[in-house]
């Protein structure tokens, strides 16, 4: 049964995170000196506090020491965090997502027992997925409804040494969380094997060099990572199929980025409605004027519709059986949520900023940050242009031959 009544646990965690954001995050991040989008430093102490609340290991199973949150709960938390700060939300959701996929699903038991305690014990330990390489951006725009015959395969390689260790040679770019990661999941081609493998590499392993991006466009923190003859134990090879699992492609993944985007729109909305109730022009609070009231209503409509599509996509992740019995359409619900949310939240943030008049563009005020943040989401790694093509391919039932197969 499609049911969006939140459980007592979900309500409790939402309230906990909201209180954390109100009491700890906003007082720090809404200060004038932290609102300049050209100069954003990650507040490490807040990330550590969030970790103590369990948010770093939110999606990791309880058996493995996490909170065991499902997809919907993870999205609720991501929205709450992003309503405080999109960078904090981006770092925490990426680590939480990877912790679940790596430790719960992809890492062999022996290695998990060895690596997990260290990860759990360190509130500053984050994870990163080192996959992207230069010139491998999506080519969907030129390959719509056609196989991508020229798709480049990974340049990163791993070869097995005599003692069984893997020796990795790789240059990865635009790796989210790279500057704060204690471990990287690295995609590689393995000589003599079909497909791609994923190796787990400690950030302090010899040969790992991280070059943080000074002014990256995406939220959180990112960097380029080089693995130069980097050796890891044989057991650090993740299970087959891990590359696809971690890439979360296909449009059916957990809509975490969309929830962050929603949180940005909500922050803008909350600021706008608060100000519209206080600011008096035309003889009454501006919220009581039709022009502003309608603007606020339009923002609220966009937030509610976006949340409904995001929650549906998240619920679908938690209830895959709902596809099988045809309760849900077999369309890429995450991608659909992405396209709508990105466009709607930029409009919402712009409308909210307009409520503030000239203060909406001042760098020491939050509204310009929300507009910037919403624009960062809209022009993210995978453009809405390509996302629409992906939806169109799904509508037509086009099945893209696996990239790996095309490259063989």
């Amino acid at each position: 049964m499609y049911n969006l009544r939140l459980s007592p646990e979900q309500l409790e965690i939402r309230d906990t995170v909201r209180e954390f954001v109100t009491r700890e995050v906003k007082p720090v991040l809404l200060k004038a000196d932290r609102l300049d989008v050209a100069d954003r430093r990650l507040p490490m102490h807040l990330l550590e506090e969030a970790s103590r609340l369990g948010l770093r290991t939110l999606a990791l199973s309880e058996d493995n020491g996490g909170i065991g949150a499902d997809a919907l709960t993870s999205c609720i938390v991501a929205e709450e965090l992003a309503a405080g700060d999109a960078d904090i939300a981006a770092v925490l959701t990426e680590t939480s997502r990877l912790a679940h996929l790596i430790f719960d699903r992809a890492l062999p038991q022996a290695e998990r027992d060895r690596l997990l305690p260290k990860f759990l014990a360190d509130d500053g330990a984050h994870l990163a997925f080192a996959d992207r390489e230069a010139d491998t951006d999506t080519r969907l725009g030129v390959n719509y409804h056609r196989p991508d015959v020229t798709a480049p395969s990974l340049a990163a390689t791993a070869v097995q040494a005599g003692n069984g260790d893997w020796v990795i040679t790789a240059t990865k770019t635009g790796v989210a969380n790279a500057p704060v990661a204690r471990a990287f999941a690295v995609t590689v081609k393995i000589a003599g094997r079909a497909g791609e493998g994923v190796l787990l590499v400690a950030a302090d392993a010899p040969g790992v060099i991280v070059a943080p991006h000074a002014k990256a466009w995406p939220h959180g923190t990112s960097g380029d990572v080089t693995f130069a003859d980097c050796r890891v134990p044989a057991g650090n090879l993740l299970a087959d199929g891990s590359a696809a699992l971690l890439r979360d492609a296909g449009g059916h993944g957990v809509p975490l980025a969309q929830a962050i985007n929603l949180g940005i729109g909500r922050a803008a909305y909350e600021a706008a409605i608060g100000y519209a109730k206080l600011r008096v022009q035309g003889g009454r609070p501006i919220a009581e004027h039709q022009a502003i009231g309608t603007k606020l209503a339009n923002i609220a409509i966009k937030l509610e519709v976006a949340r409904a599509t995001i929650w549906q996509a998240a619920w679908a992740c938690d209830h895959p059986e709902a596809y099988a019995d045809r309760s849900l359409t077999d369309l890429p619900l995450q991608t659909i949520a992405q396209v709508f949310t990105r466009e709607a939240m930029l409009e919402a943030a712009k409308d909210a900023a307009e409520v503030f008049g000239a203060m909406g563009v001042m760098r020491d005020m939050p509204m310009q940050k929300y507009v910037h943040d919403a624009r960062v989401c809209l022009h993210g790694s995978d453009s809405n242009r390509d996302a629409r093509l992906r939806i169109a391919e799904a509508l037509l039932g086009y099945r893209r031959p696996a990239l790996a197969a095309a490259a063989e």
Partner: protein
Amino acid sequence: MDFALSNEQRDWQMTARKFADEEIRPISLARDAIPTARETFDWEIVKKGSKLGFRTLAVPKEYGGHGTDFVTQALVMAELARADSAMSKTFSQNWKWSHLISHACSDEQKARFLKPFVADDTFLLGKGISEPGAGSDNRLPPEDDPKSGLKLRAERKGDDWILNGEKCFIANAPVGKLFFIDARTDPSAPLRQGTTMFLVPRDTPGFRIGKVFNKSGWRFYQNGEMIFENARVPQANVVGQVNGAVRKAGGGGEDTTGGDIFGDLELCANALGICDDACQVAMRHARTVKQGGRYLFEQQIVQLHINKMYMLTEALRSFVLRVAWEHDKKIRSCNAGLAMNFSTDVVQQVTELYMDVRGVEGCSMDHHADKLARDAIIWSHLAGDSVQRMKVARRLS
């Protein structure tokens, strides 16, 4: 109908294009990137532009200016804005207030202020209206709240007026040498009946500039607070009548619209320059950058984006030039206001479409694409907010 430009209009357009390409564009992004608001400004570009006539373009010839028509002014603003919208506005802001001097000031005031303005390459003008508690209320005074609107007080004392209060979000405040200041001279009367305009030189005792605002867009364009603490202004600096209705730039005795006729044209002409810039770089990008071995332009969605950008830009150009032409012919209409509102929607759509054509490159967004989008957001509160739209609707009614 004749859409051809005169030789003189074409000459000004070409001079502006050359100056924009050779002097403005090369420094635009570097100035935008400077983090401290008051340091983004560059007096050298002001001086160079002034020598070519871009500071005094709208001053009548009898006062030593260039006395250009509105069509020329629109063309020049768009050309300068094509290289940097904020620098274009820094020049045209002077035209706005030199229109006001020529239309609203006495001959004695014109001689006293226009002459030094024309002679000094670093003489910039501004006007103080907005205050912390009065923004929209100045633009659209509410009938049911006659006390609303600006509060800066001016009281007569002998041959002088004593000004007390503050202004905020005032363009050119940190760099201007002469300002028009709207002050309440009859606090018991509604705004339009109790306000007087004063000419206030920068060095007036008791007048100082406060904070310089750090904007996300239009970073070159200076904007600041003004503080008046018993500032002493002579009676000779009163513009028009005491408690005279608020006068508008370019209006004066021959106001053809009942509104701010230059200011509205200014914002839509400037937006046109940004749109021209965005169209040009979008086309160049799409035709030179490849994805998967093929030019971006080969993608249908990219063609559709570029089509929409050009379509909106050309529609805006038609509207801008029609408004300028109507101003020159003294045709009464509300088109300037409508064009200004329209330019908000167009400039924001066109710059967002450009950013979409461009997309994120690795982990970074092209600085120029980002700047255009940030500059375009400025229109939200200047030209396209609901008050500016309702104001035009009420004029139409």
